[in-house]
């Protein structure tokens, strides 16, 4: 499984990517929307885990951009926020919507569910 983690908190995504790799998941990460779009263009990711609140490009916007490049990619939102807008947008745009902090087992389960 090859996935992309996108979050403006590098400390978070780098650790999460390493942890996923221990569990046999090929996880790459990006800390900006632009970087994420570039990596999506260059790699064949099956799934992306996106933060919703990011500078310049929000998670929702980023998802729409990714869909233009890779319409078959699965998206999971992972956010620290729980506003109504986020909840509605996340529920509508994605098969999964998770709130930080999340157990890695729960995240992996959601990924597998999304890719099933």
């Amino acid at each position: 499984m090859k996935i992309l983690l996108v979050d403006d908190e590098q400390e978070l995504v780098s650790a999460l990517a390493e942890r996923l790799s221990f569990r046999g998941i090929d996880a790459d990460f990006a800390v900006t929307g632009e970087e994420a779009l570039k990596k999506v263009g260059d790699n064949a990711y099956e799934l992306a885990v996106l933060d919703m609140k990011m500078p310049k490009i929000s998670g929702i916007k980023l998802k729409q951009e990714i869909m233009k490049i890779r319409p078959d990619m699965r998206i999971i939102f992972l956010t620290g926020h729980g506003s109504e807008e986020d909840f509605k947008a996340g529920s509508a745009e994605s098969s999964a919507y998770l709130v930080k902090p999340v157990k890695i087992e729960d995240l992996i389960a959601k990924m597998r569910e999304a890719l099933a």
Partner: protein
Amino acid sequence: MSTPGKLRALLAKFRPAFWDQRAEEGPYKSLFNYQRTWRLSVGLLAAVALAPLCIMTAIDYNVSKRAISSENKLTMGRLTSNTRRSVAYFLDERRAALDFIVREETFAGLTRQDRLEDALKNLKSGFGGFLDLGLIDASGRQIAYVGPYSLLGRDYSGQDWFKNTLAQGHYISDVFLGFRNVPHMIIAIKKDLPDGSFYVLRTTLDTKPINDLLKSLDLSGIGDAFIINKDGALQTYSRYHGGLLEKVSLPVPEYSARTEVLEMKNKDGEGIFVGYAYIQGSPLILIVVKNAAELMKPWYDIRLELVWFLAASILVILLVILGVATYMVNKIYVADQTRAMTLHQVEHTNKMASIGRLAAGVAHEINNPLAIINEKAGLLRDLIVYKGQCEEGGRLVGLIDSVLGSVERCGAITKRLLGFARHIEVSIQPVKIQDVIEEVLSFLTKEAEYRSIRVDVDMPAPVPVFESDRGKLQQIFLNLINNAFQAMNDGGRLGIRIVMQGENRVTVSVSDDGCGIPAADLKRIFDPFFSTKTKKGGTGLGLSITYGLVQELGGTLRVESALGKGTTFYVSFPLKQDQRTVRRENSSGG
């Protein structure tokens, strides 16, 4: 219950809702002082309505009184005048009879005993009342006499009556008793003779016919009629104002050529009408007395009717004014309450939304560092577990798991905060009632632990998921459970029971074993601004808002309470929302 207690309870039943309204300060103060507005309305309406009525009644009262008084005086005057005429006629007739005798008979003829006896006999038979007849010559000596007394040869030249007769040509005396103690009076006539001399014909009259005449008058009740002389001595018998020839108990009225009627007080202080008339050609004054109370009796009857009419009118007007003023002020009160409630609800909603946004913001800010801790600690654990990079791996993994456990707890709290905040803004959605209650209870778990309050949630049968406003349900149960906590002592028990009522209704009861609510307060606890905790900062709006929220969801809220034993609130909701309610709620929510 004592009589004053019963009276207070009765008054409390009729007391309008606004009467005890005291919210005159603070952000939700009333626009009006209802009691003062009510008093002002009643006062003004009563003044405008009652003043003309009282003035008209007073005018009518006085006009009627004056009319009846005038009528009485007129009647009195007529009676007095007629009686005077009768008495005067009696005297004039007898004087005219004497005059006739002196004209018809010669002096020589009258000096004859037989002729004088014939004259007296004729007078007695023709007129009555004559007792004797005497002839007095110019020297004042009685030269002929017929009658029961021995008066022949008596010299009257020095007596006043003789002198008055010579001066006036005739004379009528006061009444006197004489030798036989019988009241009588004298009439005398002077006759001038052709030779320049004169004589006087004198007779004594019995006053019984006059007394009989006065006695025959219709003087109902305690009326009286009598004759006095100019010194006030009674010349006839009187029923109430003294004995014969005694001084009358009334003042002697001033001379008047006409009949007069006066209002005065008698010796006992009672009001009386006094009619009097001077009898011309005599020293006599006729007096008729009637009791004012008897004469004014028709007026008193009218006055009683007037008073009843006035009292009944005032009562009806006051009742109408009280009813109208109470109704109008109550309408204003209800409108004012609605305004205050609406303002409060708007403010409350805004406040909750602000709290929600704040909570969401805080949760978000905390969630990111928590996630970093989570991932870093997780990575540390993975490094130990997957790569075995530490000799004391087992102990470290235990410590890291402890950190991860704490992170999970913090995450649960922030997620709960986020969930609560999110539901404030959401309207109708599928709801599991037990989840809502557990969510609310989760905020109070610590307080329950600290205060050793036992919380029992009982749901004997499963309740299906139903459509409702989760945020409003949260507020309803948060208010009710918070109230229960405040009412309970430490170590109390809170019972929550969720039961189905038929197929389409769920009822949740929230019971506490706290202090209970007094019966007098029970019917007012849902009223806005009613609070027993005003000194402790209560606004008196919690249960009112709860009641409003339950109604908005198409539900019912009722309460049972026993003082000292506890209180139970029953909230009942339909499992299917009324579509009209839902639409209204959505549109009002913006």
